[in-house]
């Protein structure tokens, strides 16, 4: 029941919000997002109270002729991402209160997207998963196209084509699995089907699925859409893409790729881990070269998600735990970073780091929040950015120490480009005359900073939720293998 509410309520509200009076859209939306948080909290309590699981899955007939079902469930792993959506949704909704005409449309699309993403993380049925996956692409496409900056048509098209190409490959792979299975789309049956394939067939399926997920994350060399899109998308679009949508790809690796084709994965593992480590360094080096603030953050974000992908491919407990933690925390930190960037760009009208300077004089409180979020991004201990990153590097270390050292340079380069940018924007002689940020901005930044501190001091708050499921998941995978 709760699972269905979590998915359907946002989708229904996406329609409802269109008939709400214009000046009330914002408050209605925010109210609804709090309702969603309450439902999520209920789901979490329900889940932690392990006796009463039934309410956390729903299995209804959907397209009976081909055996597809409306099968959704929350387990310890998906609840982390479900929680992340619910937590970030209100923040994404409020980041820009005015300055947007057609606020109906925007909020409707955001809710639509949220509903689809809940579906992606909860789906237990291959066709349903694919449907939600595609369903989430439509709203973000329109958000970027309608409210984006320069070059929006070109970049949005590129983004769309990239993800569409990936999706088609995924669809082909899923259909192939279905045809070789027992006539069901259920994820467990698909696992069985995948495991029973010979190596060549598994390789085809593997690379088909990989293409879709790797584009979404993104990993080198499939990343070309990302910096352009992050830079030209409107703030809300960038936030949805960077904090949540990239996680769909990582989720895919974890749940729909590796266990699906265990043989192919074992064969490709080495290359994949190396590819992801290369991707970390590559993105970090690219970030060094950026002068445009949003692009810098885009590359930095890519360096982080690549490390998570590496952790998943290492496929040990430390790696997946680290990846799960980082997926959650990276969401919050990235939201904070892009929000700070948007504030700076709004205040000064400058998007380039080199033309900024000395902002700290007039924005002392903002400067404090900003450096704290930056420290979280570069993984300072006691911020939420540290435990996950450490676990990921440790996983790599257990896999191959050299790779950990190479990926570790990402933490050094991260400090270089982040502090360099901060220095150029905030320090030195004051070049701009800006007003201090609004109380609302401060409140939002305070919430983000607090979350960073809480999950930095008590990462167990998170791990305790997903750990038992992870161990189960892991042991059942070893059986498949």
């Amino acid at each position, binding site marked *: 029941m709760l699972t269905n509410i979590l998915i359907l309520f946002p989708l229904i509200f996406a329609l409802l919000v269109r008939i709400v009076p214009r000046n009330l859209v914002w408050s209605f939306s925010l109210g609804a997002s709090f309702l969603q948080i309450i439902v999520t909290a209920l789901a979490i309590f329900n889940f932690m109270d392990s006796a009463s699981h039934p309410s956390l899955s729903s299995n209804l007939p959907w397209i009976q002729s081909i055996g597809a079902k409306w099968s959704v469930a929350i387990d310890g792993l998906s609840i982390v991402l479900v929680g992340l959506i619910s937590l970030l949704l209100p923040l994404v909704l409020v980041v820009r209160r005015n300055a947007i005409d057609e606020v109906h449309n925007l909020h409707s699309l955001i809710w639509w997207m949220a509903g689809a993403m809940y579906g992606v993380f909860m789906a237990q049925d291959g066709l349903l998963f694919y449907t939600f996956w595609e369903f989430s692409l439509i709203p973000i496409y329109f958000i970027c196209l309608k409210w984006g900056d320069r070059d929006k048509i070109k970049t949005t098209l590129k983004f769309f084509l990239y993800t569409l190409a990936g999706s088609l490959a995924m669809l082909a792979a899923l259909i192939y699995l279905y045809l070789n299975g027992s006539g069901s789309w259920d994820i467990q049956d698909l696992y069985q089907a995948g495991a029973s394939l010979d190596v060549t067939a598994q390789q085809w399926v593997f690379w088909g699925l990989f293409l879709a997920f790797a584009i979404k994350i993104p990993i080198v060399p499939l990343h*070309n859409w990302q910096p352009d899109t992050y830079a030209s998308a409107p703030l809300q679009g960038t936030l949805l893409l960077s904090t949540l949508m990239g996680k769909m790809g990582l989720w895919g690796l974890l749940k729909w790729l590796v266990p699906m084709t265990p043989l192919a994965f074992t064969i490709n593992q080495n290359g994949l881990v190396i590819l992801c480590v290369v991707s970390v360094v590559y993105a970090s080096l690219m970030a060094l070269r950026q002068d445009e603030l949003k692009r810098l953050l885009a590359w930095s974000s890519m360096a982080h998600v690549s490390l998570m992908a590496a952790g998943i491919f290492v496929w040990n407990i430390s790696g997946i735990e680290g990846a799960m933690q980082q997926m959650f925390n990276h969401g919050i930190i990235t939201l904070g970073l892009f929000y700070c960037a948007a504030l700076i760009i709004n205040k000064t009208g400058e998007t380039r780091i080199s033309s900024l300077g000395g902002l700290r*004089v007039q924005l002392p409180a903002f400067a404090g929040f900003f450096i704290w979020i930056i420290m979280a991004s570069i993984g300072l201990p006691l911020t939420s950015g540290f435990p996950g990153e450490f676990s990921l590097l440790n996983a790599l*270390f257990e896999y191959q120490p050299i790779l950990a050292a190479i990926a570790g340079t990402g933490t*050094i380069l991260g400090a270089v480009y982040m502090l360099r940018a901060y220095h150029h924007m905030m320090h030195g002689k004051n070049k701009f005359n800006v007003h201090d940020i609004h109380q609302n901005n401060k409140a939002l930044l305070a919430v983000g900073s607090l979350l960073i501190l809480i999950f930095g001091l008590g990462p167990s708050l998170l791990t305790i939720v997903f750990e038992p499921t992870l161990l189960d998941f892991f042991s059942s995978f070893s059986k498949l293998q």
Partner: protein
Amino acid sequence: MVSPVMENLLLVILLFPLLGAGLNLLIGNKVGEKGIGWIANTATGFSFLTALYVFFASGGCQSGLTFSMFEWFHFGKVSIPFSFYLDGLSGLFVLIITGIGSLIHLFSMGYMHGDKEIKRYFMYLNLFIFFMLTLVMASNYLLMFVGWEGVGLCSYLLIGFWYQNSTYSEAANKAFIMNRIGDLGFLLGTMLMAYHFGSLSFGDVFPQLSQFSDTGVLTAIGILFFIGAMGKSAQLPLFTWLPDAMAGPTPVSALIHAATMVTAGIYLLARTSALYVLAPLALDLVLYTGLATALLAAVIAVYQNDIKKVLAYSTVSQLGLMFAAVGSGGFGAGVFHVLTHAAFKALLFLGAGSVIHGLHGEQDILKMGGLKKSMPVTYLTFLIATLAISGIPPFAGFFSKDLILVTLYEARGPLFFGIALLISLLTAFYMFRLFFLTFHGSPRNDKLAHESPAGMKTALIVLAVLSVVLGFLGLPHIFAHPLGLSNLLEEQLKTAVVMSAPHLSATTEIVLMVITLTAVVITIALSKRKYGSVQSLMAEETRLTTLEKWASHKFYLDEIYETVVTKNMDRLARFTQHWADELIFHNISSLSGRSVREVGLVMRKIQNGNVGSYFTAMVLAMSLILIYFIFQ
């Protein structure tokens, strides 16, 4: 038996400074400059008093006090708790940190008087104390890393305290980034340790060492930890951030970049002594790096004219000596020098601060001179500190430096002793050069010098007293035995740190001591002849030989790093951007886009709406199919 109440006090020691920072954050704007200062001072002071009580009530923490809270996080099967530990080693460090810290807080009230951002200053300073205490009180390596990076953050914030000056802000970045390089080594070390020992807690790892036979692993851990120490304690090749770090307010240089934070590397190695004694190769590296750094920095210091820069290089050099001691197995000697150095180097920095304060910001010693009369207290205390660092008895530096020299002689023979002696002589030379140029001769600028206010003077006097008495804690056996005294420091450290028993004969020790002392006194005399009564701006300082020019430019190390590391990194990044990203990936992606369009253009021609061409195509296709079936 240590009572649980006492163990709870560990948290009290730790939380006072944090509380001070928090309180100032909340009400700092309302209580005014004085209030802010008092909040910060009280916090550190109480922390110190609590530490004193715990230290003495538990008999020097010999039996080890533990205070554990909840688990911080775990990875794989390794659990990292918030757990704090006080033993002979960390007990001593806690006293240094809170004690010297309190004095520097007191000094800061005068020094920072009138600064608009004094609230921020004291918050950072309190926060620094908190993280530094976390570093030394942690009971496992990752919690130590929390403090390790936390002090790095505070150092970053304080070096760039006057952030409107771009150079300062860049110096802050440099410090943070160079430390980060070392920190990666530290982190990899913890991972290797966790992999082989299944834990990062001291109490779990050290007992396993005796059964652990893989020396390669131990050596690797030792080297990785030492890379961390190189960054934090400014050793070759990661030392160039420390001289730049002098951009921060002078009390910060005294506290962070002389007395406490930069000695964290020594603490790490001393804490890990049980491992290092099993990894002789790692210790060799420590020794060579330490000696090379000490020598290089001492040479550079001779040619610096900025009062704080001289002291900064001197710190690097002294840290190098400590590492040399540690590298030859003298962990106790290294820690002893940390203790005495904390007092006299803090005093030197505060004295320099007092001078800079008195001269309204002048830092060039060539433009000073004759301050003896106008700043008597500063003069006298500075003299004591200079004597201490030069190794003149009975000042503190004499004892600790002597122990280092003896240790080197004992473990590595006369050559290494000779190098260390040379470093000591250079130290005496440049320190007295600094001293004479600053306080003697005639004034070489027109600024009216004034003595510092009472609070600052108090701090100077207390530190001066410490610079005398602290040395007696580590009284050499040749003196202690006849007097019926014991070496208190050895007693203090023996349970926590691996100590080597001295086996040098008393005669050898006395001979070494006499040689050293004579050489130092001669060096000081030389320095006095050259710099003792300088009347006007010296021309010879500007006429340097090539080698000297190199030294005054710190052998162009920054420029070398710039060319070798920074430039190449940028080149690599530019290569990635231009060749990989723009030329290959961008073009592939637009090429595939374009080719789809091209194909579309061709295909479009087919659907031209012309019935005739459709018909032609149909006939053509049917005949092809026919031909296929006929010839099948």
